[in-house]
């Protein structure tokens, strides 16, 4: 993972509430055994017409938003399925940070584990930012993970909270997997302390049937 400190761009507005992961990446794009083709699948149902051609009105296609690394969403973004393909697809498109009113739990964890920053803004500041973006689409904001703040186009700032471990990993480009592997001695000790514990299916050995 690459370290993330800050990003500055004009945000792409997609401010609907309850955008589910089936919209972010439809199930038909989940048949890969790697991460190929996920950018093509991003918001596929909204981004493309039934004949497969791009929908010119969709925010991600607007020329002024081309290359923007910041997405501005509504509340409960990423609800529904646990598919990690959702943050993978957003990253494959080029997004580094998502600003919103709220995020679904599984999506948020998946995003952070991949170094995709989510920032929950207070409702009033979220509304302010949306107004800015509507009025002045080229206006830039800075999302600063180091300082835990978002700098608005007028220079005003909003501080945000984020899980300290996720922040630490993102700032330093660390994968949390490494931290978990360091816990293996403690996991061994836990198993020894507990004994066999509950075994799936009563502990009978099973193999491919």
């Amino acid at each position, binding site marked *: 993972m690459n370290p993330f400190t800050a990003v500055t761009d004009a945000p792409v507005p997609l401010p609907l509430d309850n955008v*589910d992961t089936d919209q972010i990446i439809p199930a038909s794009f989940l048949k*890969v055994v790697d991460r190929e083709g996920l950018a093509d699948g991003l918001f596929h149902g909204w981004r493309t017409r039934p004949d497969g051609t791009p929908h010119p009105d969709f925010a991600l296609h607007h020329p002024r938003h081309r290359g923007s690394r910041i997405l501005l969403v509504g509340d409960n973004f990423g609800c529904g399925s646990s598919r990690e393909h959702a943050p993978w697809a957003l990253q494959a498109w080029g997004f580094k940070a998502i600003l919103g009113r709220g995020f679904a739990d599984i999506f948020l964890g998946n995003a952070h584990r991949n170094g995709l920053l989510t920032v929950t803004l207070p409702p009033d500041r979220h509304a302010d930012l949306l107004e800015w973006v509507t009025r002045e689409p080229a206006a830039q904001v800075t999302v600063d993970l180091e300082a835990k703040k978002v700098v608005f186009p007028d220079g005003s700032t909003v501080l945000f909270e984020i899980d300290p471990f996720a922040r630490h990993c993102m700032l330093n480009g660390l994968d949390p997997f490494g931290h978990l592997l360091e816990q293996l001695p403690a996991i061994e000790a836990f198993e020894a302390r507990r004994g066999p514990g509950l075994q*799936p299916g009563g502990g009978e050995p099973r193999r491919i049937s």
Partner: protein
Amino acid sequence: MQAPKTLFEKVWDRHLVSEPPDPGLPSVLYIDLHLIHEVTSPQAFTELEKRGLTVRRPSRTIATMDHSTPTEPEFSMGRLRVLDPMGAGQLDRLRENCSRHGITLHTVSSPDNGIVHVMGPEQGLTQPGMTVVCGDSHTSTHGAFGALAFGIGTSEVGQVLATQALLMNKPKTLAVRVEGVLGEGLTAKDLILGVIADIGVDGGTGHVIEYTGSAIRALDMEGRMTVCNMSIEAGSRAGMIAPDEVTFSYLESLNGSPRGDVWNAALEDWRGLPTDAGASYDRLVTVDVGSLEPMVTYGTNPGMAIPVSGAIPEADALEPREREAFLKALRYMDLEPGAPIRGRPVQVVFLGSCTNSRLSDLRAAAGLLKGRRIASGVRMLVVPGSQRVKRAAEAEGLDRIFTDAGAEWRAPGCSMCLAMNQDRLAPGEYALSTSNRNFEGRQGPGGRTFLGSPLTAAASAVTGTVTDPREMAL
């Protein structure tokens, strides 16, 4: 004396590998049971291999094929190949990965194959007090046994394979107390749709739900699984129900459950799991289902549900910022604000999914369909949740009731719930579906979903329109 604890806290505490040395670090939680399937596991195994790691406790991971497997009856007999080469590639990869790492896999030709959240519980894999994870958001289903069960991403699948543990921040607790007696013709599905409509699709975000109250106690295990299954549709990764005599007698009937002294010791342990008197939750909501009607969704998220006799809300009744999403949903569904839902035509009825494909679901629908025919022009797919469910249903003759009524009796799988195989809606079609999500395009691009109970599905198949099952003699 120990401070009183909730069910969740008891299960959490007993799986805590170590307290984080620093409050800024996540806890390490031990995982008892890990379920995997073809769609969300391949990249996890690749990651393992890239890091030179192995599967640490292969006996604690069980695999099934379900998401993209065909449900043509011939398929499970091995006579039909998976039509889609990418789907077939995922199944092949799962077979290779399980074989290489010594993981039990229930392939489509196995007598124990089924949807991951149907086959796990019915084999006795899920037990009270366990931690259960799977790369699938409906893992919350297993919470019906008093397990802490939740969906994880593919990176976490790799982490569990490698360590049998996960990094977690402790969630908050939300008690959803459900009181009242469900009326005739109502099911656990109506109950949970009512709860979600009440608390909202993000009402449980950041929380583990514990369902309590007389209406929950009155449900059988399959009904409880239906309720916990849809916890994620209210934003909660996990929903739990304290184990009781209903749980224990269900478990005792399963082949996979412990026996003898091991069973007695387990039982004693499980009896200590329910929330202590005096324990407190971060939040508590109470829902009364005494006057609940069969619930049906009209929109594009599971919280957009109304009583079957009710009308779609008027846009004016909503907060201004909610209106846009509401109107977008109705445009997608091609429905008008204020219109009744009852009587809307449906072209497809889907009885299946990890929410409602167990034997009691099939019995309920078959009970209504017996001696009746589904409306002409309606296609009804009945997709049992597992091979075990399929065999049990056939032993009772339920398959004949469905086929005599004009429905299709299919092989197990996730099927039209998420349309990863050939079972899907055509653009513009309406379905009454017993599954869990009515998201845009979920059941096929352009397809439109009304969620409802197995009884509502069966009644709607007979009339070809959204129908209150209580209008038909049950």
